[in-house]
């Protein structure tokens, strides 16, 4: 035996009492317009205004400006190949029109999407291993950290592991005429630890190290 529910309402809409279909469609259209304006324009524009006032640098893309010149974004990687700079990870981004590779293209993020069994992945890693060993004067069998020879997901990874950074110390020191210890000191002072002590992984931001190296001289 069930007790009558105090909130029970008999007045369910029936085919007779319901609003007619054209009226319902009009309401649906008005709702679509209203929520487009509210969620699609008012909300993002208000957020843009408030964020721009509170955090102008980050809202604009964390751009680093030196002597009136924009040199990059603090949170994005950029391509480094010169021996006097710390190098980032391999990047699989393409040119904006898709016509060929262009590492660290911040207008067209991209990854290899090669599976673990794909021979193209194995060839690419083999080439990256050989290149990394050669440019850093390592032996042909020296183990190389995985992040140095694999492409990131975004193609714009701004970081490398400390292991990858330290293997490049001698080359950078030689190219800049510095003591290896000085270069290592710069790298270690730019080590970013796990956020709040637990989140993510410790890492080295490549661009910030390179800016610091340039500032030394």
């Amino acid at each position, binding site marked *: 035996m069930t007790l009558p529910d105090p909130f029970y309402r008999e007045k*369910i809409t029936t085919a007779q009492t319901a609003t007619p279909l054209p009226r319902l469609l009009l309401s649906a259209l008005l709702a679509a317009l209203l929520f487009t304006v509210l*969620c699609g324009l008012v909300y993002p524009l208000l*957020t843009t205004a408030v964020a721009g006032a509170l955090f102008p640098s980050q809202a604009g893309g964390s751009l680093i400006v030196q002597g009136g010149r924009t040199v990059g974004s603090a949170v994005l990687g950029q391509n480094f190949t010169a021996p006097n700079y710390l190098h980032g990870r391999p990047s699989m981004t393409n040119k904006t029109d898709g016509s060929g590779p262009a590492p660290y293209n911040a207008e*067209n993020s991209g990854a290899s999407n090669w599976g673990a*069994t794909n021979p193209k992945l194995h060839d690419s890693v083999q080439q990256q291993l050989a290149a990394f060993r050669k440019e850093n004067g390592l032996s042909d069998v020296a183990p190389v950290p995985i992040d140095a020879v694999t492409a990131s997901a975004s193609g714009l*990874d701004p970081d490398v592991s400390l292991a990858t950074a330290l293997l490049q110390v001698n080359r950078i020191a030689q190219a800049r005429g510095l003591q290896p210890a000085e270069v290592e000191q710069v790298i270690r002072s730019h080590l970013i630890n796990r956020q709040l002590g637990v*989140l993510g992984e410790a890492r080295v931001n490549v661009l910030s190290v390179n800016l610091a190296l340039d500032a030394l001289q």
Partner: protein
Amino acid sequence: MSAAFLQFALLLAIMTALVVPVGNWLYTVFAGERHTAPERLTYALIGINADERMGWQRYGLVMVMSNLVMLLLAYLLIRLQGLLPWNPAGLSSQSPDLAWNTVVSFLTNTNWQAYSGEQSLSYFSQMAVITTFMFTSAATGFAGAAAFMRGLAGKNGADLGNFWVDFTRIIYRVFLPICFVLALVFVWQGMPQTLNPYATATTLEGATQTIALGPVASLESIKHIGTNGGGFFSMNAAHPFENPTPLTNALHILSMLLLPSSLTYAFGRLISNTRQGWVIFGGMLVMFVGFLLTLYSFEQAGNPILSKLGAEQTISATQAGGNMEGKEVRFGIAQTALFATTTTAATTGSVDSMHDSYTGMGGFVPMLQMMLNNVFGGKGVGFINFVQYLILSVFIAGLMVGRTPEFLGKKIEAREIKLVMLAVLAHPLSILGFTALAVALPEPLKSLNNSGPHGFSEILYAYTSGTANNGSAFAGLSANTPFYNLTIGLAMLVGRYLTLLPMLAVAGLLASKRRVPLSSGTLPTDTLLFGALSVFIILIVGALTFLPALTLGPVADHLQMVYP
């Protein structure tokens, strides 16, 4: 290792701690009698009667109608992009088949993206179409869940509530306030939020780097609070602008889990049995942890083929190791595994790593979770799917002991079971049927980026993701072809509406049934035993349906990697 487990435990503890307060909040949204002033204004503006009580057919009709109109409006806006403002990069409009795929994808909360955001959508489209849909499709899902829960609670007879009221309240009281605050935190951490044109930098080596920008943060917060998943940029939450720090990554993960996990508690309150809510939460959590640990261990173990070549993948004091192809250094394997497990559990579909580059068994986990589609689940749909399995469990247990099955005091009879089975079977039929069609035709195979078992996985993943309304991808597949745009679009519609509508009907039928008194023959559904039974049923039904396909894809792929 211990650092990874510490992160897992921390995030899952925060999620669990939020279940009760957020669940109570959701309960008042669903069950509160009072309309606030902005809500009353909205009802007046769109001309609806907020006191109309809807039965399940009416509720379903209004939901489908409102969605249909949004679909048409959005299609129009995307196709007219070239004529509309805030298009600093001068991007042209998408082709008709691509625009169809895009709007269906966002309408169904799938967020499958056959396009690249920074290459194909103007700031206006990103805001007025994509961001809007992220709100409305998530609100539609939650409204469906609210109606479903009311039906199961059966307190108001056949009355499932009012679609417009549910829809509006969720956006005003839940989504907008959380998303606004979260977006500001995201910007603080380094996410852009601007209408300025793309920036041009001259790198230290003198090269030119064009930097795509945009109103990113306001999209990112609703992307995960509404478990939508579609990225602003092509590489989604792996892009440093979408996910600049491990903290934003953790917030992304928590945002995805926040509402789906709390929904279980809100449900418990609606049916005046919070134990039942906790049993559902527990079942989901157990599966989640199992999947998380599986994914983590396979990805952290790395790729033995690369080890042989000389790549060092072991954890040490100076590197985090693991299979790092297609992953970002700041997240490492632990946060990546947590993100991937969450995004495929909560039917979000955003990615902070490339799932295509996982080891075979690493890729097995996201696929299986989308096939089960009920581990937390997004915007109410996962919850509905879980209850669908609970009803199935009651039915199977009833068969075993020879009694009429009952769920929440209502008899489960032939009609309900038929509808449940329609929903249970539509899902694999769409996934396996479309996959079979694609591999049988010559044209779709040209889109593959990998060959052999991994190529099969790419196609299987695409239709699983579409049907489960997830949206993540084995992104190597070139899915922007008329064949894939069309068929994945259909899979998304099947996955969305052939789950939502039959289950709404089940709720409506149960709601109008008389409550039968508890007796010694009643199988209690709010116990640990029943929770465990339903988890087994979910795994067995999922395994029986999908294991053959999974064996051909990820399992064979993994064996090839270990024994090349």
